[in-house]
């Protein structure tokens, strides 16, 4: 990509002899908000730490704005990182926490004061500048951590699980805040998360990682609606995935003949894409859970277990009762086997 701002090329990252990320290539555009998404151990945090310079890559290059920074020490990179634990300095006041990096730059006092002031204003903490971090709530601590990085005007801002330590209401607030900040400052942000909902809501593009390899890269819309691998589909809520063999799909306990063109790969259905109450197949409802807007059913069928959801506004089905269901082909997503382990 010619307009790449942050560019990772053939990056190999290892702890000792354990290779965590074998060959990572990634281009991030200027001003983009990118999510590195994946289960724990997929190498997303390691990748982020290497961009920050906290970990030296085994091979490959990292460049920002065309400049190779692979060998630049962390304190000279001009990259900000908001730690998951916030990593605030407990012995310093809110003001001094934000001023920390500016003082190291040996800027004039008045300039530091006004920059800190403005930084705290941006995250809505101006009235707390004399507090100690320990006297603040989790949400405030995170915004302080954000302000501390932002006043340094970093080329790239990295965020490690920025929403995971917050409760539901604060999470929404912070999400809006991060999007607003990105709009206002045009800063390039890369954040790491294991939560698909977080990635979908916040990112311009999502990098889905598995075992150190990019499984799929695309907009939230693409990943959610058009995952192209079994792993991606599973991660984005296609909970019923069956392998195709000839003209049949294979479940855990049985097979089902379906009319499909493809001869191999997988067919995947979201729980909401399966209709129950009518259809050509039979099963028994083995459990039901009420989840607010939806009811979640598990159906035992000759094929195996099937997860189905129905709107909770419709009347419930009884546990233990036989039920008809339909695995409609036009509602399934076909996944090719490419890139999958065999």
């Amino acid at each position: 990509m010619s307009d790449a701002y942050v560019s990772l090329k053939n990056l190999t990252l290892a702890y000792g002899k354990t290779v965590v990320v074998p060959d990572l290539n990634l281009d991030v555009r200027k001003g983009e908000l990118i999510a590195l998404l994946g289960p724990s151990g997929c190498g997303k945090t390691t990748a982020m730490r290497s961009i920050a310079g906290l970990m030296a890559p085994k091979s490959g290059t990292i460049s920002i704005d065309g400049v190779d920074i692979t060998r630049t020490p962390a304190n000279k990179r001009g990259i900000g990182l908001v730690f998951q634990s916030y990593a605030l300095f407990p012995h310093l006041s809110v003001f001094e926490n934000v001023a920390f990096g500016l003082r190291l730059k040996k800027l004039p006092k008045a300039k530091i004061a006004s920059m800190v002031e403005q930084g705290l204003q941006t995250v809505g903490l101006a009235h707390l500048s004399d507090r100690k971090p320990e006297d603040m709530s989790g949400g405030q601590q995170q915004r302080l951590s954000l302000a501390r990085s932002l006043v340094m005007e970093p080329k790239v801002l990295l965020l490690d699980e920025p929403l995971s330590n917050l409760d539901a209401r604060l999470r929404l607030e912070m999400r809006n805040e991060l999007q607003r900040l990105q709009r206002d400052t045009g800063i390039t942000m890369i954040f790491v998360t294991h939560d698909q909902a977080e990635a979908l809501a916040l990112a311009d593009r999502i990098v889905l990682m598995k075992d150190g390899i990019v499984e799929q890269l695309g907009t939230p819309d693409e990943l959610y609606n058009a995952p192209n691998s079994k792993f991606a589909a599973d991660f984005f809520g296609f909970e019923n995935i069956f392998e195709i063999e000839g003209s049949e799909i294979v479940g855990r306990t049985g097979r089902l003949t379906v009319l499909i063109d493809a001869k191999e790969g997988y067919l995947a259905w979201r729980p909401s894409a399966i209709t129950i109450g009518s259809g050509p197949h039979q099963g028994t409802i083995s459990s039901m859970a009420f989840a607010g807007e939806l009811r979640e059913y598990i159906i035992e069928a000759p094929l195996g277990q099937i997860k189905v959801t129905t709107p909770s506004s419709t009347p419930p089905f009884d546990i233990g009762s036989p039920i008809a269901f339909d695995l409609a082909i036009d509602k399934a997503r076909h996944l090719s086997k490419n890139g999958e382990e065999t």
Partner: protein
Amino acid sequence: MYSKWTTRLIIGLTLTFLIGPFFIIILAGLSDGEFMTFPPDGISLRWYAKVFTVESFRDSFKLSMFLAIFGTIAALILGVPAAYAISRYKIPYGETIKTIVAAPIIVPGIIVGLALLRYLVVPLNFTVTLALFMAHTALILPYAVRVVSSSMNNLRSDMEEAAVLLGCSRLGAFTRVVLPNIQSGVLAAFILGFVTSFNQVPVSLFLSGPGVRTLPIDMLSYMEITYDPSVAALSALLALLSVVIVFMAEKFLGFSRYV
């Protein structure tokens, strides 16, 4: 369980056992007589006054202060980086190093003293003062490492990484972020080291030479010749000094968290 009065009696006896000797020493030093007796033979402050006029006490007090202060500082200079390395990095044989560092407390002081005398002072011609200084440093080191690393363990390493990303060097992150946050641990280690060194007898006993004695050793040898109440008076003054130090440490630093 026990009745209220039994409990009080047990507590009272325990406290008497622990603090009683302290009062006996204070009172014995207040005696007006020529010999150390209890109960005191009349009341006067003359033995407390005499303490300050005995020249060997003054010299050995100076030596003991020197050893306690500079021995502790030396132990901290060695111990703080050691504590940092042990608690921060998975260094090879980290546990072994911890054990070795703790050795001077585990090995009886008599043995440490003898070993230092036999292998440093005699064959290498170290002066007694230098040997004493080294011995005290070694004895304080375990306390320094333990106390400082326990306050270091509460410190997350990502704080240092955050400092580095804000432009600090590694060393800068240590002095600007780590040190301020382990300050009270370092002070606690200093006080503990100071008291340990000042009260040290067995090792110092072996490493005394002509005119070079620490205060406790000097008091011992003074008593062998003169059994007057001045030693009791001096003991009382030293005990008071320790109490004041520990009390202040507790008040200002919450000392008991570290020991």
